[in-house]
């Protein structure tokens, strides 16, 4: 029931995602702006030099794209709770954990797809993709997608209003992105920003992907892998908890009725 439940949720979400496949193209706007406008502009006057800077921020921009796609996917939870098919899901025998896991999987899948659409622009940013780098990068994209999707679901599952979520999401996502070292080398950043980056899962994801492409790491890749795995485990657990708690609504500790009279 667990696996079938996850599968059903993924099929539901991917069918809906496919209706809006134009989002994959629209989703290119933000990363390309960062890459070819911001990147070019800042790069021209940075110590790194224009071409180098664009190369440098490419993995960061990729992470940005994954982060926003994954969390946007999670917003559907908030909306679904109020109306729609999700209500039918909630009265089905699908385990609540399967709903959380299905949501995380489909969000990750959507993010990874978006990542694959951004990837072909790497050569234009001065990064010819060799086979080895591409495979390593796929691994990074997969890991980052799952992390960001778990983050989105763990947060979104707690909200009941669609209007609040984007605000909270921006208050969380943008700081995470800016502190991640996506747009500047963490090695040259002030101490407090380096400390903050250590607490930011996005920083590890960016660093892994950058390492895969440029072979330059700020964190040890093993540390990054370990941290991301731990973050995924923790957030998934939190998401499952929220979905389980929804079961008993407001009644704290529903009494079990004694049917044997």
């Amino acid at each position: 029931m667990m696996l079938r439940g996850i599968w059903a949720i993924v099929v539901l979400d991917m069918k809906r995602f496919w209706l809006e496949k134009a989002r994959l193209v629209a989703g290119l706007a933000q990363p390309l702006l960062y890459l070819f406008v911001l990147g070019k502009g800042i790069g021209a006057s940075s110590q790194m030099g224009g071409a180098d800077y664009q190369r440098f921020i490419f993995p960061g921009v990729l992470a940005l794209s994954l982060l926003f796609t994954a969390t946007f996917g999670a917003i559907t939870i908030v909306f679904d709770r109020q109306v729609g098919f999700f209500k039918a899901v909630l009265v089905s025998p699908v385990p609540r954990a399967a709903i959380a896991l299905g949501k995380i999987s489909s969000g990750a899948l959507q993010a990874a797809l978006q990542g694959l659409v951004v990837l072909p622009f790497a050569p234009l940013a001065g990064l010819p993709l060799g086979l080895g780098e591409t495979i390593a990068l796929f691994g990074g994209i997969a890991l980052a997608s799952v992390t960001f999707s778990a983050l989105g679901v763990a947060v979104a599952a707690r909200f009941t209003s669609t209007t609040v979520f984007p605000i909270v999401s921006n208050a969380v996502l943008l700081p995470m992105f800016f502190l991640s070292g996506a747009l500047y080398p963490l090695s040259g950043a002030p101490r407090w920003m380096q400390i903050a980056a250590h607490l930011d899962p996005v920083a590890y994801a960016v660093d892994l992907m950058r390492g895969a492409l440029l072979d330059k790491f700020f964190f040890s890749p093993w540390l990054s892998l370990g941290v991301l795995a731990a973050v995924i485990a923790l957030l998934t657990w939190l998401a499952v908890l929220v979905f389980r708690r929804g079961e008993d609504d407001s009644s704290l500790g529903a009494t079990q009725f004694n049917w044997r009279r």
Partner: protein
Amino acid sequence: MPSASATPASAATPAVEVRGVVKRYGAVEALRGIDLTVNTGEMFALLGPNGAGKTTLFSILATLRAPTEGGARVLGHDVVAERDAVRRAMGIVFQEPAIEQRLSGRDNLLLMGLLYGLPTAAARRRADEILGQLGLAEAADRPAKTLSGGQRRKLELARALVTDPKILFLDEATLGLDVDARRGFWGHVRGLAAAGCTVFFTTHYMEEAEVADRIALIDQGRIVALDTPRALKARLGGGVIRLKTDDDTRARAWLVEKNFTPEAEAGAELMLLHADPAAVLPELLRHLPVKVLRAEVKEPSLEDVFLKLTGRKLAGDEAPAALGAGGAPGGGRGKGGRP
């Protein structure tokens, strides 16, 4: 712990069993001790005004909320302890839409099958079967949002039927539909009931409640009466006289003085129960000291029964036709909006 093994779902097991259910939302007591039993294969209606506790009781039986006190069983399964068994056995149509409007009917039903653990091919077959049965085959591939209101409601029913439920829960399932669409919808439901499916529904359309084998009238979190429609109406005895006069206050005073007992009704009419209304009406018309604008004698309706028992009117009954016509007040209506 309730023992599942001791209560197998057999013919002897009631379809629904509710014992002493109390539901509190903070200080608000939505249900104040509900007891009822629904037999297998029965069509059972829960009738009451908004805020009476209909949706709360419905949600408890549908495993969406847990009772604060007491317990409920559906087909012998405890709705809290054996939630998944209840979910597997029931089909449910909500007042609000629970289909993905952007996807086709076929896709919606396919997904429903997957959720209940059917393999993809079997889910597909089942979807086609149900679409055919409900006459939705032609509309099956259009996005649900492009269907008519009646078709969409049928699709909701189809969604509930994908898993071949033994019991069907309908919460104001035809709200906002026109008379024809409602008739079509209930035609299907009656067919299911005839085939042995238990149907438990809430409504505030009187004529819909009339099709039930038994009706529970609920008011302020309590069941005030539970019986067949005929027996409920027989409780009033005789019939109902409704009068509209140019001075209802004076007319009421006169009636009381003559030892009649007009109901304390909120509406703009006088209502009088009498064992032989047709015989007494001419008498009344002759002697009433006010001008009678309109007089009516009729069989008591469920509305009258409810009024007699609670002193309150059921909501939304005055103009059912107007309610049925298109843009009804939709899903909100202050239901389920509780914390």
